[in-house]
C-alpha cells in the first residue's frame, strides 16, 4: 500500500513536471517570436545573398521601415571638423547617402550624384555624403591617416557636396547600414520618402530626388 502511494506521488510529480515544461516551452517560443517581430521591424532589408539565386538584391522589392517616418536626426563632422546637422537642412530636400571609399558601386553613382545636385540645387536640393570608412579612435596618427584617405577619395571623385565622417555612429537609427551605397531621400519637412540599398540607376535616383523636392513643402 505504501509502495503504491509512493508510485502515485511520483506519477503526479512527473505529470506536474510535464505540464510545467510544456508551459515554459510555449512561453519561451512566444517570447522568441515577439523578439523576431521586433527585430524585423527595425532591420533594413539588406541581408547579403547566400545562394546562387541571390544575385539580384532582394532589398529592391522591399520597402525600408523608415519610409514615411521622420529621418533620424544626426550631427556629424566634416573632414575639416565642422559640425553639420541634418536639422539645419529643414526646408530643403536632402539625399543622405551612406558610402565608403572602398565601395566600388559608390564610385559609380558618385558622378551621377554630383550632376544631379548641380541640376537641382537651385530648387532646394542638397546631398550629405556619409562616409562609413573606419576611423581609428585610439591612435591620433592613424585617425589622421584615415581622414586623409577619405579626403583623397573625396578629391579624386571631385565631390563638392558635404561629406561627413564617422557614419557608423549613426548607422543604428538608420536601421543598420549593412550594404553600400544606401540612400535615404528626405523631403522638405524632414520625412524619409524613399530609401534605396545598393546601386540603382540614375533615373531612379532622379525620380526620388524630384519626389523629395515635391514633398513636405509649406
Amino acid at each position, binding site marked *: 500500500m505504501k509502495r*503504491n502511494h509512493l*508510485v502515485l506521488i*511520483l*506519477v503526479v510529480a*512527473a*505529470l506536474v*513536471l*510535464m505540464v510545467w*515544461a*510544456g508551459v*515554459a*516551452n510555449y512561453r*519561451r*517560443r512566444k517570447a*522568441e*517570436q515577439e523578439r*523576431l517581430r521586433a527585430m524585423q521591424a527595425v532591420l533594413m532589408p*539588406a*541581408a*547579403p*545573398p*547566400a*545562394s*546562387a*539565386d*541571390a*544575385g*539580384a*538584391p532582394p532589398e529592391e522589392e522591399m520597402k525600408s521601415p523608415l519610409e514615411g517616418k521622420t529621418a533620424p536626426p544626426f550631427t556629424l563632422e566634416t573632414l575639416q571638423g565642422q559640425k553639420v546637422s541634418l536639422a539645419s537642412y529643414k526646408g530643403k530636400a536632402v539625399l543622405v547617402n551612406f558610402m*565608403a*571609399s*572602398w*565601395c*566600388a*558601386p*559608390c564610385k*559609380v553613382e558618385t558622378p551621377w550624384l554630383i550632376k544631379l545636385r548641380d541640376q537641382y540645387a537651385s530648387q532646394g536640393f542638397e546631398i550629405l555624403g556619409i562616409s*562609413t570608412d*573606419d576611423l581609428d579612435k585610439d591612435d591620433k596618427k592613424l585617425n589622421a591617416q584615415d581622414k586623409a*584617405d577619405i579626403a583623397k*577619395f573625396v578629391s579624386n571623385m571631385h565631390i563638392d557636396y558635404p561629406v561627413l565622417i564617422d557614419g557608423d555612429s549613426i548607422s543604428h537609427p538608420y536601421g543598420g*547600414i*549593412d*550594404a*553600400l*551605397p544606401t540612400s535615404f531621400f528626405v523631403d522638405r519637412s524632414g520625412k524619409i520618402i524613399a530609401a534605396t*540599398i*545598393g*546601386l*540603382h540607376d540614375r533615373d531612379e535616383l532622379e525620380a526620388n530626388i524630384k519626389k523629395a523636392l515635391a514633398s513636405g513643402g509649406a
Partner: protein
Amino acid sequence: MRRLLSIVLAGALCLGLQCAVSQKLAWQSDAQTKGDAHQMVRFLYPEQVTVVAGKPSVLELHFRVNDGLHINSHEPRAKSLIPTQLMVGEPTGVDVASVDFPPGTDYSPAFTPNDKLSVYTGEFVLRAHVTAQHGDHLVQAALRYQACDANSCYPPKTAPVAISLIAK
C-alpha cells in the same frame, strides 16, 4: 504500475530536457546559433592537422565565399580596395613563417564592365608555412575580407579560423 511510472517519468524527462536546452527556432540557422550569421566567407577545413614536430610544414586552409558574392584578393588592383588578409595568433611552440595567397581571378562588375577587379569567389585555399614543437597546439586566426555582390558592397568582416595542430 511500474511500467506506467517509467513511461511517465521518461516523458517528463524528455520534455524537461527539451525545455532546458536552448531550441533552434525556424528562423534561426546553424550559423546564427554559432554567432556568425552574417559571415560571407567561411573557413571550411581542416579542423585538425598532424605534422612532424620541428619540421617546416604547410597547412592548406580552405575557405568558401558565399554564392553571388566576391571578395577582394590579397592584392586588389586599386589601393582603395580592402585586401583579404589572414591575421594569425601564434601560440607558444608554433611558428608561422608566412602565408601564401592564391592570385585573384579577374572580375568585371556589371556596372563598370571595363574595370577589372582581382577577386576570390567560391572556394579558395591559403597555404600557411608552419613549424611546430612537439605537442598539441590550438592555432587561431582570422580572415579579414570585404565582400560585394552585383550592386552592393558590405563592410569588412573577419571570419574566425581555429585549427588543432598536433606535432609528433
